[in-house]
């Protein structure tokens, strides 16, 4: 990661790094395999990793499953996009105008801990049960990580940098957009990465609890009500969700390293 870590280990070569990643994944799979094969957990309910993987591969060839996945993907993408578009400006506002923050905090903090399970029927009553239902719940959950990371990111901006721009006669808005925002952007990006995971969880969870029609969650729900439950299907579905999460995260990290190169190179994380 960084040349200036606690141990000052020189960065390893990409080949080594990839093999470590692979080793980590294999170890994790082996652990599941072991738990299942040794009967530590009943294989009927936690099938071995090889079986899950096998099932995952065949699922991919199943057009019905692909349709489920696509529906979930859509809800996830729309929800995350809206959350980011709302949360960043809101975070900038709350983070830079303390009065607004103070005034709205009681409302925000009151609304925040309301769980989506409680909201599911209420949201359904207000806006209906289609795609908009899932999207609304996803937005509601994915908003917070971005909002908070924006607010806390702003606090980390070097005051001397802000003053520099101010001294050239730039107003508060210009300082916000030209100094505070770029300076806290890497941390906001971390918030977006967090939100991407939260959004994925919420999409699938909402589908499991109250989905209709299509979606990975619906697929998982139906696998669960079979007798006996098709655990391999459920976990294969979970596998694809998890893998999608890994892929999205990797993309975002790559984006982050490209766009915020200054941030990483400065810290000796060459590349």
């Amino acid at each position: 990661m960084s040349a200036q870590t606690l141990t000052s280990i020189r960065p390893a070569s990409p080949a080594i790094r990839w093999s470590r990643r692979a080793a980590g994944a294999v170890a994790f799979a082996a652990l599941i395999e072991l738990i299942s094969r040794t009967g530590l957990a009943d294989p009927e309910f936690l099938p071995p990793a090889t079986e899950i993987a096998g099932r995952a591969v065949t699922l991919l060839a199943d057009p019905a499953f692909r349709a489920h996945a696509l529906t979930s993907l859509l809800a996830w993408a729309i929800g995350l996009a809206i959350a980011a578009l709302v949360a960043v400006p809101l975070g900038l506002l709350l983070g830079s105008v303390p009065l607004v923050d103070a005034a709205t905090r009681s409302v925000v903090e009151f609304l925040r801990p309301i769980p989506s399970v409680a909201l599911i029927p209420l949201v359904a009553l207000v806006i209906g049960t289609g795609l908009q239902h899932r999207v609304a719940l996803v937005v509601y959950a994915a908003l917070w990580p971005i909002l908070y990371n924006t607010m806390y990111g702003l606090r980390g901006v070097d005051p001397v940098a802000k003053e520099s721009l101010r001294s050239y006669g730039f107003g508060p808005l210009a300082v916000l957009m030209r100094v505070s925002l770029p300076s806290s952007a890497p941390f906001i990006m971390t918030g977006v990465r967090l939100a991407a995971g939260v959004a994925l969880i919420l999409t699938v969870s909402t589908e499991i609890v109250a989905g209709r029609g299509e979606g990975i969650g619906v697929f998982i729900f139906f696998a669960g009500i079979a007798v006996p439950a098709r655990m391999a299907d459920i976990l294969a579905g979970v596998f694809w969700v998890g893998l999608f999460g890994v892929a999205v995260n990797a993309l975002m990290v790559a984006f982050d390293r490209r766009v915020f190169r200054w941030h990483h190179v400065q810290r000796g994380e060459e590349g």
Partner: protein
Amino acid sequence: MLEIDNLSHVYGGGTPNAHHAIEGLNLSVAEGELLCIVGPSGCGKSTLLRSIAGLITPTGGQVKVEGNVVKQTPDNLAVVFQDYSRSLFPWMSVADNVALPLRRRNMDKKQREDAAREALESVGLEGAARKYPFQLSGGMQQRVAIARALAYRPSLMLMDEPFGSVDAQTREDLEDLVLKVRGHHQMTIVLITHDIDESVYVGDRVVVLSKAPAHVVGDLKVDLPGPRDQITTREHPDFVHLRAEVGRLVRGHATV
């Protein structure tokens, strides 16, 4: 141009660790003047500068720039911060750092780029335009900060130990650069320095501040003949005399 009237500043007022940085400071700077400020470390020079720039609200007295009491940052002002490395934006190339304030001027992109390039050249950094601040040495970063202020063509320029991190040769070049720019563009400049020779060499006037809380203990007009020159001016007997005078004031032996 600049009127400082009975200025006081207390940090952490009301707390047990209140610190009186400035107390009852009076000072006025004429249009086009280059005023040097010297004074012991920690006396309150940077605090004074921040008050002029409207970055802090003094706890007493007032600062007037062009007749207006400073509440916000006055227009057409540039500051070279003592903490120059933190005042550069790490996400921008050096050229962009210099060009950024020019957005306040009526300039298109091309003009901004040209002005930035020119300013960087004038501080000897023509090769560094596309680099990022962290890729520069300390002295180079300091010169970027100077270039940024110069490119902006402010009517009032505040410089807080602007040449502290550069070598002797570059320092002299930069001193002459400031003198030249001042002559060309009718800037008023307030320059803080620890180098007594420098204060006499570049200043039209040298103000000496006391230990904290800062107030003015000496105010010398520098009346050296002709255009200044690194060799001849520094050899001039008036220069030597003034230098000694400032030195005595700084060391606490007021002459008058």
